[in-house]
């Protein structure tokens, strides 16, 4: 994911090539796997506690043939997608509203600043009491947590809009709404995209977290929570964790690539990664 070669420390060996990095990365993973293998097989660590990497990987692959597991993953992804979609829609519209009406912005900001620091997982018990367990609870919590990054990035992006461009369109008699639509929104879009990427990660945290806490129903988190309850379910817990990580990786990679494709013209993409 590194766009440009990092500067080589002066007077030292030359910078690594792309192959050099790949080989070393693969070696790092292999060493890690081997270490867990040795610890497990030599009996240094109890296999019930920390199964060797090969067993976890084999189980992870095996889970792909398990329809119940797959439908669990699907329901997690569905809750994630529904929650995120609502959060993006709500966050962007609220951001546009607050970003273009300063009076409203100051007023709502105060309320927002008191709501935002509440750690979203603390709401899981409350929302579960009100809505029970299931998709509605999960989606509600995701919406709450994922709206913030979208909202703040939208407002932030709107502050960055070139005022000359807005004034020009206004001078030509375009309405406020069409100025927003034609100038502000496209210009803020790269910032909004960053907000969506952050929100997507948070949404996944909330989806899996809610499922782990509720412990029944369907979902990747439920699978992990139930595996934890069973005797020698550690392999399943870790295999589930591997898939949770894969989900995170797939989502993040897709969004980063999407951003790079859509907004390759924008400074945030031409500068360094971060």
């Amino acid at each position, binding site marked *: 994911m590194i766009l440009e070669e990092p500067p080589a420390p002066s007077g030292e060996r030359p910078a690594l090539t792309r192959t050099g990095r790949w080989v070393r990365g693969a070696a790092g993973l292999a060493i890690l796997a081997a270490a867990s293998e040795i610890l497990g097989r030599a009996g240094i660590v109890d296999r019930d506690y920390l199964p060797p990497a090969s067993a976890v990987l084999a189980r992870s692959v095996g889970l792909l043939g398990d329809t119940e597991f797959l439908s669990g993953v699907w329901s997690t992804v569905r809750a994630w997608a529904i929650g995120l979609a609502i959060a993006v829609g709500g966050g962007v519209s609220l951001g546009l509203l607050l970003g273009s009406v300063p009076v409203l912005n100051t*007023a709502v900001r105060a309320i927002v600043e008191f709501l935002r620091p509440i750690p979203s997982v603390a709401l899981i018990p409350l929302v579960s009491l009100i809505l029970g367990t299931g998709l509605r609870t999960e989606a509600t919590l995701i919406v709450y947590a994922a709206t913030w990054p979208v909202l703040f990035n939208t407002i932030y992006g709107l502050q960055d809009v070139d005022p000359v461009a807005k004034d020009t369109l206004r001078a030509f008699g375009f309405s406020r709404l069409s100025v927003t639509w034609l100038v502000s929104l496209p210009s803020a879009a790269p910032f909004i995209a960053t907000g969506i990427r952050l929100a997507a990660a948070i949404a996944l945290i909330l989806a899996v977290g809610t499922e782990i806490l509720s412990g029944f129903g369907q979902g990747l988190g439920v699978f992990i929570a139930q595996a934890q309850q069973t005797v020698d379910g550690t392999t399943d817990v870790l295999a589930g964790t591997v898939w949770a990580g894969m989900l995170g*990786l797939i989502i993040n990679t897709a969004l980063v690539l999407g951003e790079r494709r859509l907004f390759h013209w924008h400074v945030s993409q031409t500068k360094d990664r971060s």
Partner: protein
Amino acid sequence: MSAGAGGRTVVRLGAGVLHRWLALAVAVAAWEVGTRAAHSPFFPPPSRITSRMYHLWFSGPGTRLFLTSDATANVVPSLLRMATGLTISLVAGVGLGLALGRSERLFAYFDPAFQFARVIPPPTLVPVFIVLFKLGTQMQIAAIVFSAIWPILLNTTDGARSVDPLQMETAQVYKLSAADRVLKIIFPATLPKIFAGLRLSLSLSLILMVFSELLPGTANGIGFELTDAQSRSDLPTVWAAIVLLGILGYVLNAILLAVERRVLAWHRGSRGTDA
């Protein structure tokens, strides 16, 4: 902010503060009226929540800073866990990050493993740690560290990689020792990035602190109080715990920002920007 507009700015600022507090007051009042009218057991009025907060935690004797025994039994352990987890993350993350940032080869070995560890949704790891560690504080701190360390570690690495090569060359010319180079050049240059990571880690550690306490196997903590109240359907206490966590999040973040502003005063000053 130009000097000429100073007076007007003060007036505007004053109006802004008033405006903000007014909005908040109106919102709370509306909530009070609405919840009183609705009589929903799920939404107690704010006045009941605050009085519950007072009775639960802040009605203790003055000699103990007005903290009740419930506060010292639940709030304090939570904060200690969070502080311990965050400190370990900070020390380990900065140490490892500086090393990885200055050695491209070392970094290449770890990068894929770290990138994967970072994308795992942190709550998923709590069941893993419940199995690996003893229940209770040990597991909770492990869970906090394993999620809070990534932003610090990756940001430090990033910052240490991009230290101005000219500064490093100057250090070489003046024959600075390796320790001096780390302490006087690399570490200060990395500080802004470290703080950026620390801010993320702070909110992550708060989230993980609560989450690890929500799961069975905890005997105390704010999260424990929260689930305990949930199981008794004691809604005012559930709300009180949530509000307390919100206040804690706000205060901790404000403290961190104040420290950051102090520590990084030279940074912004020397660059001549006030972003």
